[in-house]
Each structure stands twice: as C-alpha cells, then as structure tokens.
C-alpha cells in the first residue's frame, strides 16, 4: 500500500479507536487555538474598526504595519514570546514558559494582526457606505464602531476563521514556547512534527489528515451558521 493510503487507514483507525492520547492532543489544540482566537478577536476587531474610521496622523503607516504583520513568521513570534517569558525575561517570574498559556499568548500575538487588518479593510469599505448615515443619526464613536462591526458580521466571520485557521495550523510558535511536552503542551501540529522526525510517517500523515478534516468541519459549521443568519437579515 502506498504511504498515502496507509496514512488514511491510520487516520481512520485513530478516529475510530478514539485513542485517549490523541483525544487529549486534539482537545488541547482546539482549546489553545480557540482561546487565542477569542483573545485576538477581542483585541483585533475593535482595533481594526477604529483604524478604519478614525483619521489620525500616521494612520497609513499603521495600516501598512498591520498588513505586513499578517505575514509574521510564527517562529519569530514564538521567539519573541520565549524571550518575554523565559526565566530571565521581563515576564519570567510568572513561570508561564512551556505551558498552554504561553502557547495561547504566542498564537494571540500571531493572529491579532490578521484579524485587525482584515477587519480594518472590511469595516472601511462598509463605512464608506453607511458611516455618514450613522453620524447623521447621531451615533457616538463607540456606537458607530459597534454598529459597523455588527453590520459586517458576515464578512467578519470569515476573518475570524482565517485567524483560527492560522492558529490551528501553525507549528513554529507553539513548539518554541510550548516545548511539545507530552500530555502538557503537545498539540496536533507539534505531534506531527515529532512523528515526522521519528520516521513514523503514516502516523504523522494520519494526524495531518485529521487536522485538515477538523479545519474543514469547523469551516463548514461556520458557513452553515452564517447562511442561516444571513437568511434572517
């Protein structure tokens, strides 16, 4: 059997057998990336919207920086967070290095620019259309931000998915700040990297197939929710 075929069989067996070790890894992946998404959304959505409608000196530079930061290499973000959290770093005393919290912090930093930059673009386009009406109706700055984000909710779901996908799929940041410690900080991507190094390619590929399947499922669910909501508005 080809390696790919074997990988599919492995993936299937992993799912069917519901291996507890695997379940733990999958759950931690979802937890870490989900927490990072929530944090990054709480920061990125308002920041993107504010940059979209506020005119201030240096705004262009901020937009360029945000857009460029979408391409931040995960290993670089991981390294920065590592330096912050390492024992001699400024946040060293918190003892967060090689914990899931450190992974959440790294992934949050990684995807805030993605969410903020895409939100900025979406809200700016939308504001061309409706912001003047909102101002005419007497909406305050905060009310305009909230309304624009709500009006852009269908586009912004895709934005959040892009961020989530980036977090779930990256390996560079979590492996540096998490350390890929079994039962503690091992997630799907770091497990794949490990199994590849060990030479267990079918297992690595099986995990990979599982990861892709997971991403597809999440996106499919989000798409479904979006379509139901869109019908009502």
């Amino acid at each position, binding site marked *: 059997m080809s390696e790919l075929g074997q990988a599919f069989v492995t993936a299937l067996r992993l799912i069917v057998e519901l291996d507890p070790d695997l379940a733990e890894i999958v759950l931690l992946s979802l937890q870490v990336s989900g927490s990072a998404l929530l944090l990054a959304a709480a920061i990125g959505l308002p920041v993107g919207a504010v940059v979209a409608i506020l005119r201030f000196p240096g705004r262009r530079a901020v937009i360029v920086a945000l857009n460029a930061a979408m391409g931040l290499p995960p290993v670089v973000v991981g390294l920065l967070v590592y330096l912050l959290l390492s024992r001699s770093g400024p946040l060293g005393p918190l003892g967060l290095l090689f914990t899931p919290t450190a992974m959440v912090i790294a992934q949050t930093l990684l995807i805030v620019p993605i969410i903020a930059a895409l939100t900025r673009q979406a809200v700016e386009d939308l504001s061309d259309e*409706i912001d003047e*009406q909102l101002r005419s109706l007497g909406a305050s700055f905060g009310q305009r931000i909230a309304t624009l984000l709500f009006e852009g909710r269908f586009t912004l779901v895709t934005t959040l998915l892009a961020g989530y996908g980036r977090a779930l799929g990256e390996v560079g940041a979590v492996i540096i700040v998490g350390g890929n410690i079994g039962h503690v900080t091992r997630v799907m991507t770091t497990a794949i990297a490990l199994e590849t190094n060990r030479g267990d390619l079918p297992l690595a590929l099986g995990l990979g197939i599982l990861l892709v399947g997971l991403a597809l499922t999440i996106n499919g669910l989000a798409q479904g929710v979006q379509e139901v909501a869109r019908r009502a*508005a």
Partner: protein
Amino acid sequence: MPPERQASPPLRVEAERQAILPLRLEAVTLRMGRTTLLEDIDFRLTAGPCTVVLGPNGSGKTQLLRICDGLVAPTSGRVVWEGPAAARAAEARALVFQRPVLLRRSAAANIDYALRLRGLPSQERARRIERVLTDTRLADLADRPARRLSIGEQQRLALARAWALEPAVLFLDEPASALDPGSTGALESAIRTIRGEGTKIVMTTHDLAQAQRMADEVLFLDDGRLLEQTAAADFFAEPETAPARKFLRGEIL
C-alpha cells in the same frame, strides 16, 4: 447663548421643535483638495416654507446639505443655528440620503435603531415605529429585511426613519431620484404630511416638475455658487439670473 429651559411651561411640540431655526450660512466655502465645491454661500432659512435647492448635477447641492446637517465642516465660513434651542440642533435635524442607507436588519429594527440612539423609551419607540410605517405604507413589510426591499420601499423606509425622529428640520437629498412616478407621488405626499406636522423641509432636486410641486422657496445653485434665493412663484415666473433662466428652459449650463 444657552436657551432658557426651566420655569417656562411646556411648549407645544411644534413650537419647541422649530426652536433651532433659523439656520444661517455665512460665507460658507467648501474645498476638497484643489476643487472648490461650494463658494461663498450666504443664506438664511426660516421655519415654515418648504425650501427646494435646485441646480444641475454637480452644482454642490449634496455638499450643501451635508454642511447643513453637520457632516462636514466648511473650509471657511460659519453655519449658525439661530433659534433659542440651538444647542440641541444636532438631534433636531435629520438627513435622508439620495441612496437610502439601511442596516442589515428588519425594516422596523432600522427605525428602532435610530430611536434608540435618541434614548427613547421602548413604548414610545414602538408607537412611533407603527405610526411612520403605517403612514409610509410599509406596515406589512415591518419584519422584512430592509435590504431586501425594493428601491422605492427603501426610499420610503429611509424617510420613515427620519420622520420617526420628529426633527425640526428634515434635509432630503434627491428623495425621488430613483423612483417611478407612482412611488414619487407617494413619497411627495408623505413629505407634505411631515411638513404639515411642523417640520421644516429642505430638499434638493434637479427635477423641475418636482420643484414646482413642492417648493415655497427656491435656492438656485450653479457651480458651487448660490445664485438665487427666491419665492417659488417668482422664481418659476421670472428667474433673476441668466443661468437659472437657462436651467428652466432645460438648456445645459
């Protein structure tokens, strides 16, 4: 000058609402980049007459309304609300844009949104929503997504939303530009009803027939300049300026 608020007995609603007028523009000029959109505009609008801002496309009508509604500050010159309630001018005016701008929610919720911004209690909001939807013949569509309505219905909904705010002054930018004659008639009759309730109407149009039906007073704009402020009867009988005469004859300016 802060208005006197205490001690006076409650005014009639109409009288109170009108209290932000007159509106005076003093030497208002608006430039964007090197383009001059409005130049040295002076006028005074008083409560009562329906003012129609007339002029060819690109003459600056929309910019003039945006300045009056406080959406853009003039490059130079002043916009002054002279009435005793001038401090409340921002919430006593409303603007209906040429292209209706509606939010992704139901027709009724669009009106509710505007009323919430004014901090009105829910009973009062419900009362006004029902009232304006009925009077704009949209009651049956109250729960429909606003952006799925026809363009004519959207225009009426945008008008209904502004109406629900019970403004002292209502600015309308080409309110019927996208409508067929039947819808235009319905819209104009709604505007007349609003006017009958004591709201000052200031509307732009490039449609002469509509101007003649609606105007008590005409502001004629050409190329960013105010050429005439005249009673409608006089304007349509004998305009004072050559561009206005040409415009009335349907010639290209």
